[in-house]
């Protein structure tokens, strides 16, 4: 009961005896709870105080009360002490943890520095794996994951019409007008249509992408111009003041930023536009647009079957996309009934704009991400097997450390620190690699990959890389670390090589690692093989027309667009377009080095208009009903407008009849040339020449009669992977309306580059309004397969990486096997075995693992390549040739990787091997 009682006057009594209690009796702090620690201390005080008071004559109960009074508010003090104690302990534990971590890190660093070869190889492996994954992730992040650069982007949707067969169509103007008026789900709705034109800024002619937009376009996006203002009501009506908004980039490139915006104009589309605003940087929709002008300046008389507009809308905050879909479908049904026969829209697609923009890019990108993940797995397996090798070679050292008192957990933690440090360093290097790769990708402009501008290495990518690095370090470092820590417990110190069971265990683990590397590499190689074959097949497709020594030039005819949609004015426009085209063709044909010149309304290897046509003399459109009766046959075809010499210039053979010539004058009966596919499908057993065709939806020439005068051979008009479809060609002189932004093709008699120079000079001199951007047709061909090339290039790089990594892994395990069996092999050599037999013996197991991995990989590849199917051309996913070649390549790489250790095995000196046990 009495602590310091009895002799209260002696302070020394309270000191720890002999400078501290018996160490064995002390309780470390961590073993006593915070509450108990505090309570004991305070109790001790109260008891000691009570005893002291009792000693000076107080009764026991009075002494206890007095001690409590002198102490003060016990509960409050206890609480305060507990809080303080808990805080102190936390601080101390954290400090201890950091201290250990620092020690571990320092030790790990020394270990890595002590084996520069191992470290360099592991770092290289990780850099490649993490770099590949990071680069592709940043692409996926920028293109697919990042929200659109507009406020509340999830509320912006894309609206498209659907025909009866479920095909998506652009929206007709009358339907759009009705939607905008009637739909309740939207805060704002707007339509836009893209064009391309040459515009003149100041005195400079530049090719630009103008977008015609309706009022409310900026409200849908939710953006305001950075400089200036948006359109006002007076600018968004027929006959209003022509006003334009320009993109930030376009403004920076072509405008004088020292002058007031209002004083600067853009001429094009037959108007002179006052620039009223500059859009904020990055907020460019549609992507690549240079300027926006109100579409209301022009009259639009197209009907409900003229699908010319893209429509976007901003949902009201409380309206879900499903509700909007339901409303729009009901609206479409109603409009279909109200305008029966004149409205071919069966439904409306409402899609989030962000998803719609990247719909085509999603699948290829995710496949590449998957491929990158496989590369990462290969490099991580490679790391794990080198860590295992390290662990095996360090067994002795670890056993010593274990014997010196390092616990198993401590050793595992130390080894994990090493692997995580390696991975973090590899991640940092990989980040550098990814940075370079992303710049390369952006420079290459892989086809139509949307939103490439938002692809960067930023905070999100950094976090991803860090997570991947730490994850790989922990997961793939764990098994080798556990194994090494186990080794320390077995009799390693006593000079043994571990128990037989344990050896079997780690050997099997290693075999699995190497086999999976081989399997993963095989999947990647098969995938890249298939894509390379696709690319090769595409590039060796004969498009059916001349590609070599052919220059192309995109032109916008510099004519004023009439302000009203009146047949008289439009005919005048058409005549102007045709005569400008003829003059330009004539001038170019006379230039030196030019063999022949032609014109086509929409460039080959690109998209163009298509529509319905009907056969026979009877009109296919009457005033009331779109779909005629009276046995009129309808069909669907792509159509283009061409000059007389186009087919000859492109060396497209004539199958029947004739090409266009002077006879097809604007006043004469209209002529049309069809391709063989159309002729075969439309008139299987008849002579197509002299047949009558009517084209619907060609604006000015709706329902004009045209007589088939010729049949040309099928060509790959719209792309190398596009099978020929029915095509109609109309002469420039008769149907120039659709050829206002044509492409000129120039067949050169000399080298393209040599012929281009005088052409450029000619264009600058006589056609300053046309940018002299001559592009060779072969470049267009290459450009048309850019996506296939990009995917193939990335996958081939990944496949090559995986192959090298797998070979390194095989080499590692083979070297270990040989080293492990040095003694046995030495004995065999001494007993007269031939070196070749010894080599075979040492490596048989390794090759068996390689083969097993290859077979598993082949099975996995059969499943995985099916995902590639939509990207393949003229090669099946399970292409036997590709599989066989890849298997052969991998096995050859495996054998090659075994060669160095095998030579080492054959050169074993029996005497040395048997005496030296190291």
């Amino acid at each position, binding site marked *: 009961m009495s602590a310091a009682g009895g002799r209260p006057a002696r*302070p020394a009594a*309270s000191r*720890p*005896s002999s400078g501290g*209690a018996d160490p064995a009796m002390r*309780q470390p702090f961590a073993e006593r709870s915070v509450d108990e620690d505090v309570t004991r201390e305070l109790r*001790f005080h109260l008891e000691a105080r009570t005893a002291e008071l009792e000693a000076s004559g107080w009764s026991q109960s009075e002494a206890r009360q007095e001690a409590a009074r002198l102490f*003060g508010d016990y509960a409050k003090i206890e609480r305060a*002490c507990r809080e303080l104690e808990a805080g102190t302990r936390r601080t101390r534990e954290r400090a201890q943890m950091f201290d250990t971590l620092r020690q571990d890190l320092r030790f790990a660093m020394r270990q890595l520095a002590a084996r520069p070869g191992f470290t360099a190889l592991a770092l290289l492996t990780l850099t490649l794996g993490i770099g590949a994954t990071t680069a592709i992730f940043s692409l996926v992040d920028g293109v697919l994951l990042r929200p659109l650069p507009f406020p509340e982007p999830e509320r912006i949707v894309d609206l498209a019409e659907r025909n009866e067969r479920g095909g998506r169509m652009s929206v007709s103007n009358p339907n759009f007008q009705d939607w905008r008026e009637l739909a309740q789900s939207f805060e704002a709705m707007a339509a836009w249509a893209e064009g391309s034109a040459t515009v003149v800024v100041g005195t400079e002619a530049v090719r630009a992408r103008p977008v015609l937009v309706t009022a409310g376009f900026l409200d849908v996006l939710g953006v305001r111009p950075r400089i200036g203002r948006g359109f006002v009501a007076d600018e968004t009506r027929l006959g209003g003041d022509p006003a334009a908004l320009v993109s930030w980039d376009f403004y920076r490139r072509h405008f004088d930023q020292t002058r007031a915006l209002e004083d600067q104009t853009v001429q094009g589309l037959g108007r002179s536009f006052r620039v009223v605003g500059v859009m904020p940087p990055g907020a460019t929709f549609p992507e690549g647009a240079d300027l926006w002008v109100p579409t209301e300046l022009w009259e639009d008389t197209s009907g409900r079957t003229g699908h010319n507009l893209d429509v976007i809308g901003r949902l009201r905050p409380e309206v879900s996309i499903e509700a909007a879909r339901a409303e729009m479908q009901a609206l479409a049904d109603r409009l279909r009934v109200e305008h029966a026969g004149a409205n071919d829209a069966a439904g409306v697609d409402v899609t989030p704009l962000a998803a719609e923009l990247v719909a085509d890019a999603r699948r290829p990108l995710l496949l590449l991400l998957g491929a990158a993940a496989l590369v990462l797995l290969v490099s991580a397996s490679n790391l794990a097997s080198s860590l295992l090798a390290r662990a095996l070679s360090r067994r002795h050292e670890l056993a010593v450390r274990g014997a010196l008192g390092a616990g198993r957990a401590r050793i595992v933690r130390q080894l994990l620190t090493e692997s995580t440090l390696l991975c973090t360093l590899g991640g940092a290097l990989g980040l550098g690699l990814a940075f370079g790769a992303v710049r390369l990708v952006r420079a290459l402009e892989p086809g139509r990959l949307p939103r490439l501008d938002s692809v960067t290495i930023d905070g999100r990518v950094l976090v991803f890389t860090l997570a991947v690095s730490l994850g790989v370090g922990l997961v793939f470092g764990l098994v080798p670390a556990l194994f090494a820590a186990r080794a320390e417990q077995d009799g390693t110190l006593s000079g043994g090589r571990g128990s037989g069971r344990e050896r079997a265990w780690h050997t099997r683990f290693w075999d699995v690692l190497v086999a999976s590397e081989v399997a993963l590499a095989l999947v990647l190689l098969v995938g890249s093989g298939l894509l390379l074959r696709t690319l090769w097949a595409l590039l060796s497709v004969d498009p059916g027309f001349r590609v070599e020594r052919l220059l192309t030039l995109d032109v916008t005819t510099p004519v004023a667009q009439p302000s009203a949609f009146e047949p008289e004015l439009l005919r005048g426009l058409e005549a102007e377009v045709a005569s400008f085209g003829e003059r330009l063709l004539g001038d170019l044909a006379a230039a030196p080095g030019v063999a022949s010149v032609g014109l086509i309304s929409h460039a080959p290897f690109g998209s163009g208009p298509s529509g319905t046509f009907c056969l026979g003399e009877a009109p296919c459109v009457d005033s009331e009903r779109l779909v005629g009766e009276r046995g009129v046959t309808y069909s669907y075809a792509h159509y283009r407008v061409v000059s007389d010499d186009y087919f000859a210039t492109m060396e497209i053979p004539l199958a029947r009849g004739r090409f266009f010539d002077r006879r097809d004058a604007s006043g004469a009966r209209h002529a049309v040339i069809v391709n063989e596919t159309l002729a075969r499908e439309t008139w299987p057993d008849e002579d197509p020449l002299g047949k009558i065709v009517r084209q619907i939806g060609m604006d000015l020439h709706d329902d004009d009669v045209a007589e088939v005068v010729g049949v040309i051979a099928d060509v790959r008009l719209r792309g190398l992977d596009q099978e020929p479809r029915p095509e109609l060609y109309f002469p420039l002189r008769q149907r120039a309306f659709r050829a206002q932004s044509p492409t000129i093709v120039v067949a050169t008699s000399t080298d393209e580059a040599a012929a281009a120079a005088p052409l450029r000079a000619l264009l600058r001199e006589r056609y300053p309004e046309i940018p002299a951007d001559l592009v060779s047709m072969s470049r267009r061909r290459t450009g048309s397969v850019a996506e296939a090339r990009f995917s193939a290039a990335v996958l081939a790089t990944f496949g090559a990486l995986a192959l090298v990594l797998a070979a390194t892994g095989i080499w590692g395990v083979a070297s270990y096997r040989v080293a492990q069996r040095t003694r046995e092999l030495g004995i065999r050599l001494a007993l007269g075995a031939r070196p070749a037999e010894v080599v075979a013996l040492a490596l048989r197991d390794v090759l068996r693992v390689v083969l097993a991995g290859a077979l598993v990989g082949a099975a996995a590849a059969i499943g995985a390549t099916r995902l590639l199917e939509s990207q393949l051309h003229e090669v099946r996913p399970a292409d036997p040739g590709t599989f066989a070649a890849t298997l052969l390549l991998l096995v050859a790489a495996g054998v090659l990787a075994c060669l160095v250790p095998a030579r080492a095995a054959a050169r074993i000196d029996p005497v040395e091997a048997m005496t030296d046990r190291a």
Partner: protein
Amino acid sequence: MGAPALNLLKGTLDVLLLKTLSWGPLHGYAISRQIREATGDALQVEEGALYPALRRLEQRGFLRSEWGLTEHQREARFYELTEPGRRELESGVRDWQRYVAAMSSVLSRAAPARSR
């Protein structure tokens, strides 16, 4: 024991504790008894207030503590001054002396000043 006295003591208590421990490690009860004896009960401190103060000093690194046994084989928590604690004590003593000097020089001149 009123609120003003406690406030005044707040900074001083730390110095008092550090000073008491400067002769060697002590447990809390011994510290309180020493202060009581040294000041001849002139300074009235709630005895319990020592403990949060001790732990606060420990958290700031001026003290470290350890459970040990008293002479009577009772378990008690002993506090010991650390090197930073010793420096803190020195600066605390200096501050206190400057404070006292300033106060007393003002107080000793107080009478003539007031008579004007």
